[in-house]
């Protein structure tokens, strides 16, 4: 695993095979160093077999949903051809990273922008796209512009800034923002692969996913599968944080890595951690046991990496208070267009804050359960369901704390007034 913080660190981690694929060209790789390291990729030459190659590689999206990349691409290109009057699709590289604990995409854009651009142009060529976009936070745009100016295909790509909101990277919010300047999700009655940006079939792929595409196009599916497991091939970037500032690190880890190995590679001792948030604010709290980080598999053994966020609960921090803070934030990040999300999330945050603050009302956990059950499945995007998943995992992992709080104690904070 290759840790990257502000600067690239080359220290070999104790319990894991070092992997360095995406960041192999080193820090802030300009086009010459990129081409020296990986070779030049001609999109026209790469495009013909690319979707088959992606299928053989088993690459899944690295933006959170872990959907098979080739399926998304094929759906987009088929729906473009199915029309009475064929329309050429749109391809969007999604670098929006609204998740406060995620920084791997901006790290990738800063250090390996040309891999992202190579992947974007190759996919765009493979689906015969008419328009190609790079959607990224304002802070990443100057670097992206420099890379575009250097890259042989850079002129084809239009850059659009993403706002720093939690929901700005949701695929339909990306399309909506490019079309109207408003980064809020759209109703899902129609699929983006059928009608997305200006009615065109639209393919939105995470920037890390595209960087993997660029490598698969060069080195093949077997090469990609040489890391990871058959169920979770290749590598992924993870943003590891926790235990005070200055320790945040981006690692490239093989598919199916053990959570404990990843934590150790990031310089943490899993034995000293009480809980770890995996998958970000829409993810789950787990005890730092030997969970496998993979998109699929039995709950209890496998924990889904989502967009690759791993955050350790700091020493002496109350998990319930941490979760209440996150849910309060998430409630504030509702796009406030779907009733159950607009009302349900603040209601859940309210109950959770009362539990976290030590209010001794035994009905509170039941209220939270009922609200969670009420909001699930009822929004234009995954925001309510993601929030409910986080709360559910907190009530499970911190169940002892819930009992203590209801009895007037907190193991982290101490004893409240009786």
């Amino acid at each position, binding site marked *: 695993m290759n840790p990257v913080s502000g600067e690239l660190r080359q220290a070999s981690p104790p319990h894991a095979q070092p992997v360095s694929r995406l960041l192999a060209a080193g820090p802030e790789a300009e086009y010459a160093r990129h081409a020296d390291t990986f070779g030049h990729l001609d999109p026209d030459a790469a495009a013909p077999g690319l979707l088959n190659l992606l299928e053989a590689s088993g690459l899944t999206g690295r933006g959170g949903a872990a959907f098979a990349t080739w399926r998304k691409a094929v759906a987009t290109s088929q729906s473009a051809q199915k029309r009475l009057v064929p329309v050429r699709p749109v391809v969007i590289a999604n670098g929006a990273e609204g998740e406060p604990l995620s920084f791997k995409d901006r790290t990738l854009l800063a250090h390996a922008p040309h891999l992202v651009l190579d992947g974007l142009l190759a996919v765009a060529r493979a689906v015969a796209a008419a328009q190609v976009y790079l959607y990224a936070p304002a802070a990443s745009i100057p670097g992206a512009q420099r890379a575009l100016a250097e890259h042989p295909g850079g002129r084809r790509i239009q850059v659009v800034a993403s706002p720093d909101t939690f929901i700005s990277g949701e695929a339909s919010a990306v399309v909506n923002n490019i079309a109207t300047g408003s980064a809020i*999700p*759209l*109703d*899902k*009655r129609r699929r983006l692969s059928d009608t997305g940006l200006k009615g065109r079939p639209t393919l939105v792929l995470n920037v890390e996913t595209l960087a993997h595409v660029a490598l698969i196009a060069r080195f093949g599916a077997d090469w990609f599968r040489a890391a990871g497991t058959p169920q979770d091939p290749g590598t992924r970037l993870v943003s590891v944080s926790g235990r005070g500032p200055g320790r945040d690190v981006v690692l490239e880890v093989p598919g199916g890595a053990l959570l404990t190995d990843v934590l150790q590679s990031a310089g943490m001792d899993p034995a000293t951690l009480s809980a770890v948030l995996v998958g970000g604010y829409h993810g789950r709290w787990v005890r730092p046991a030997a969970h496998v980080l993979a998109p699929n598999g039995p709950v209890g053994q496998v924990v889904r990496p989502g967009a690759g966020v791993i955050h350790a609960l700091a020493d002496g921090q109350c998990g319930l208070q941490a979760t209440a803070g996150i849910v309060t934030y998430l409630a504030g990040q509702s796009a406030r*267009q*779907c*009733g*159950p*999300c607009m*009302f*349900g999330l603040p*209601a859940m945050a309210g109950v959770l804050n009362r539990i976290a603050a030590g209010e001794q009302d035994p009905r509170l956990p039941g209220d939270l359960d009922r609200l969670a059950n*009420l909001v*699930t*499945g*009822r*929004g*234009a995007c995954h925001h309510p369901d993601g929030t409910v998943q986080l709360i559910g995992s907190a009530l499970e992992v911190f169940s002892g704390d819930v009992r203590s709080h209801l009895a007037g104690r907190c193991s982290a904070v101490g004893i409240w007034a009786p």
Partner: protein
Amino acid sequence: MTATLHIDWTRCDGRGLCAELLSGVLVRDDWGYPVARGRQGPERTDVPVRPDDLEAAREAVSLCPRLALSLRDAASGDSQRRR
């Protein structure tokens, strides 16, 4: 094939007319928004409608003041919407 009633949450304002017209299928939540009876997950946004309820579902689609409802015949994928 069962038809599904799609609820566009970005449009619905929760006044609850649909729950009156389709009381066998929808109830109202704490804030007035429709909840599909006995359904979980995605079936709360794309709600299966039995043939007996189809007529009332069509009526709800055409009377929803916010044009938030659409009916999709799962067999053909066609959707009916008042727009």
